[in-house]
């Protein structure tokens, strides 16, 4: 099972790298011009640059050269930043990981209890509040929320810093709070909806009625329902994690955070192919890993799936 999954993932990565590679070439713009900037371009300089970055080779050769290097662990050079791709990504990975982790945590901690409460007291003011919150969270664009939060909590009430990643440690965490909340809003809205729907369905089920019928306390009945609802919630949560990937670009831009999102944005604009390729693959590997973890989580959460997997 696992072998099939890994092979499938490798296949997807390969196809993805080809698509991204060709799309960057199709997009308008010229790397050489980007590199030379405002300096006067002599034909010699152009030729030298083209040779250095294999731009004089046919397209498929360029791809194969990149592929060969990647397979040997060399992700190439960032044309724009004049550094190895591994270094460039390594320097920014931490901030994005911390941002994603923090926003996911905030989303879970707020959305799951709120979803459970709004399902348990469906129709009450808390349910209406949660539903309203969900609609706002789902429909508000990330950059708008980010700007709003900046205005309120960094400008009018200056509790949080306006931009940047801070000096590491707690200071960085402090700097990440607003962008994390920005991201968590959309994420949390989806998880809230999922939790509410899953809980409502489980609360309707016979085993909940039977639990109440034999005198189990409400809290315990809700825990039983939540344990059953955990399966759809985990599926949903793992799916929306991918939402973070697009979201970080916007949040990092809004808050001027030097993370992978801003790196991706800059590299795409510059046609910095090596960086874009590496980042795309990194995202794809992350998503595949999340999906695999979610599948493993089912086996942990659902004894029926466990029995089926065990018998195979």
């Amino acid at each position, binding site marked *: 099972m696992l072998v099939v999954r890994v092979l499938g993932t490798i296949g997807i990565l390969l196809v993805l790298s080809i698509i991204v590679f060709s799309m960057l070439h199709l997009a308008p713009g010229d790397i050489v011009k980007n590199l030379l900037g405002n300096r006067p371009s002599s034909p010699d300089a152009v030729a030298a640059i083209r040779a250095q970055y294999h731009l004089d080779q046919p397209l498929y050769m360029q791809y194969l050269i990149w592929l060969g290097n990647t397979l040997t662990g060399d992700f190439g050079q960032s044309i724009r930043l004049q550094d190895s791709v591994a270094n460039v990504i390594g320097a920014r990975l931490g901030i994005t990981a911390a941002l994603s982790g923090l926003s996911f945590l905030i989303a879970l901690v707020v959305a799951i209890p709120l979803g459970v409460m709004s399902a348990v007291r469906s129709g009450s003011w808390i349910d209406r509040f949660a539903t309203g919150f969900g609609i706002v969270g789902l429909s508000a664009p990330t950059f708008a929320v980010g700007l709003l939060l900046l205005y309120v909590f960094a400008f009018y009430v200056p509790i949080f810093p306006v931009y940047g990643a801070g000096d590491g440690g707690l200071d960085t965490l402090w700097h990440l709070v607003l962008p994390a909340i920005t991201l968590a809003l959309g994420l949390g809205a989806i998880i809230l909806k999922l939790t509410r729907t899953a809980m409502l369905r489980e609360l309707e089920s016979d*085993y909940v*009625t039977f639990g109440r019928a034999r005198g189990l306390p409400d809290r315990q009945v809700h825990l039983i329902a939540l344990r059953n609802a955990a399966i759809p919630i985990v599926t949903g949560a793992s799916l929306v994690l991918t939402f973070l990937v697009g979201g970080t670009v916007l949040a990092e831009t809004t808050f001027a955070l030097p993370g992978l999102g801003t790196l991706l944005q800059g590299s795409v604009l510059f046609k910095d192919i090596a960086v874009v390729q590496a980042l795309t693959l990194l995202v794809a590997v992350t998503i595949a890993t999340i999906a695999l973890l979610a599948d493993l989580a089912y086996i942990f959460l659902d004894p029926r799936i466990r029995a089926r997997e065990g018998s195979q």
Partner: protein
Amino acid sequence: MTHAHVEVAGLTIEGPAGVVVAPFDFAIGRGETLALIGESGSGKTLSAKAIAGLLPSGFSARGSIALTTATIELPATDAIWRATRGRRISLLLQDPFTSLSPVHRCGTQIAMTIDAASDRRLSRSECADLVTQRLAEVNLPSDVARAYPHELSGGMRQRVAIAAALATDPELLIADEPTTALDASNQGEILDLLRRLQQARGMAALLISHDLGMVRGRAEHVLVMRHGEIVERGDTSSVLTAPSHPYTRALIEADPSLTDRSAAVERAASDASMLNDLVVATHVTKSFGDKAVLHGVSVAVGRGETVGIVGESGSGKTTIARCIAGLERESSGEIVFDGVVLAPGRASRTPKQMQIVFQDPYSSLNPMISVGRSLKLALRVAGRPASDLNSLLRLVELPVEFAVKRPAELSGGQRQRVAIARALAVQPQLLICDESVSALDVSVQKQILDLLAKLRVDLGLSILFISHDLAVVRQLADRVYVLRNGEVVESGDCHDVLNAPTHPYTQTLVAASIHEAPTH
């Protein structure tokens, strides 16, 4: 305890559209069982839920429930119900497949109840001992505590549910159709177990059922409910032998375990020209993965003949029907229709050869389109004009005005008639009925069975009738096959097989079905 019994007075239930259950009283003595009988929609389940304080939202109850330790005036607050449910009143639900949480071990679920009813915190080992004790009471070994519900059979699950419901030692146990979802051979055992536990504990029990025959010998008194009103009450034996209300008489007459084949079927059987076979399935085997479901099953249906296949769930009865219909591909074996060998799968079959009517008329009809459109679509498949719609509705004895209705507006029996009409629209030679009446109430069951009997005479239909219910098959079938674990253990003339079974398994099946039925 002075007079340990339960007295319910003036129980009334109101729904969004007014009174659903009219005021009624009853009392249950210590160690006694009261049976509440009614068909679906009669209000019997709502009554059960009202007494357990679990009415769905939109419904409210009035009246009073007097227990030995407390009297509850309805409607009661949540706090009162919290103190009542479990410790004083426990409710056992119908379907053991859904009433236990699938992701919690059985022992945990029983332990939760013990914990909830206990005044102090119990240690792990104390709790484990109590769980073992409770399981032993329902004749289950202690290792069931570590099992998940899906690892147990339906009968075992219902035993676990009983252990969980009784773990609080309630004064009153309400059992809402506790055996309806179970196989015939399990039903008697579970009811007897409940009876024994209830008498041993001196507990009062309210047994809710749609099946009058089942309560004989298992309840002291009977209430018969219809459209939210009590139409008859009395001693179980006197109600069963001398019913005073016409509805009770109709219920007894409709009970398939009480009557043999109806007159219409008798006529049809004599008319049937069983000269040659329409379908012959020979040595059909089928495996799902490693699991063999059919081990060489041979079944034949003659022209104009009605053949029953009887077996419990997991016996392979549905699989053989689906193989014949081409909905499953048999692993080996041969299926011959009208002298032609059919390859596995649907591609080799035409709609005119055979049609299938499924168990659940609620899910087999598209809820979004009207009855008329559903049937017109079926007529178009057969190349018949849409104007045949009215005659098709008349064929299944539905008024022509039903064409504009949607499935949601119809009762279960009416929906099943529509499903039959849809199957008959293409004028098939063979009609396969897969548990087609199992989801229906007994009186509706009888109407559908009579309709099928009429149709086979009028249309010269061959019918392959799959059921777990011996009594139903007895009413309709000419010949019967008894399936067990994917093998035919007995076959032959329906009357002979069911009246004088030779295989031990058939004997237990027949014994189980008679056990629930009053003997006369």
